[in-house]
């Protein structure tokens, strides 16, 4: 009984935890200049705000899974995680191009910040809900 209860929490924790990590990543610097002295957090731009909204949605979805443990809900949140992963990977590619471009100017001392990598990690965690793990209500239904 206790084991099944813990399994019920698992997808909820994954969704809420992953979503929180995504949201936290948008608050962290995505790129910095002058060796980290001037940093720009992701939330400052549209892409960061979109990812923050996605993270918040995943957290809300995690709570919803607790209230209504429906496998379709888990799949929906997992799909959101997959979309966030693809989005974050695409922006990471843009970050790479941007830092390469800015590196041609040695006084700028541009380098990527940790935020976008944190977003990607959180998105991957949320996307893990799509994996064929023994989620509790899969067995129950």
């Amino acid at each position, binding site marked *: 009984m206790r084991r099944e209860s813990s399994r019920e929490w698992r997808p909820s924790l994954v969704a809420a935890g992953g979503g929180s990590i995504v949201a936290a990543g948008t608050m962290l610097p995505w790129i910095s200049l002058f*060796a980290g*002295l*001037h940093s720009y957090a*992701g939330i400052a731009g*549209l892409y960061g705000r979109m990812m923050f909204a996605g993270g918040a949605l995943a957290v809300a979805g995690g709570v919803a899974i607790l209230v209504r443990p429906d496998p379709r809900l888990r799949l929906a949140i997992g799909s959101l995680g997959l979309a966030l992963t693809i989005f974050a990977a695409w922006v990471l590619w843009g970050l*790479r191009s941007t830092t390469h471009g800015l*590196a041609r100017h040695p006084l700028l001392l541009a380098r990527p910040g940790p935020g976008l990598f944190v977003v990607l990690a959180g998105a991957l965690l949320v996307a893990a809900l799509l994996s064929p793990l023994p989620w509790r209500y899969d067995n129950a239904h």
Partner: protein
Amino acid sequence: MHTRSLSLSALFAVASMVVGCADQRSPGEPSSTRSSLAANHDAHSGASVGFTDGWQNGTTVSFFYTKPFFCSDGPPSGAPSGCEVGEDGTSDPRPGKIPVLYVMTPTGFRPDASTLQCPIPGNCINHPSTIDLSRVFGPGFADVPLPAHSHIIDSDLDESQSNGGEAGWWEIEVIGVSSPAVWDQIVAGKSLATVRALQAAGVGITDDIRSNAYLFFSVRPKT
């Protein structure tokens, strides 16, 4: 043939200066004789040629840039330029000790523009006019202003006297200043000694942040 060749060269030089100026300063920016005048490109190497101001031993001097920057082979960098920050390079552009150019960077506040040698985006040689971060942050981030900064050197150091104290390589190190009061003291002192004293106090200023990037310029009296 020779005359034609000279004419073409002159035309190219004039065109380069026009393009260089247009690229370095946006129409809305006021002209400044105090800050840098990155003006043209060297026809032989493609290097940017121009001036920035700098502080040296209590006075303001001019730096005259004539060669492209140099980034050492290491530490590892994913950038095509090979530039990396936070770690010293494994190879230098020439043997022997190399003097340091300290990039003084205000953080968290905007000092008076008269105290900044690169106060206006694009007014400094080797700097982009503005930064396009739209691929990272999305629409609205295609024209981010370049953070302002100033420069300090100390040519009393032995290594600064190499090449007769004239043109040579300078290693870039960054120092962040988070306190307006500290910034004002640096502006008043215009010297590395002032910076070192403030670093010793340990408030409102960072330690030296090393890089593997080098610039080539000569130090000239400010005219």
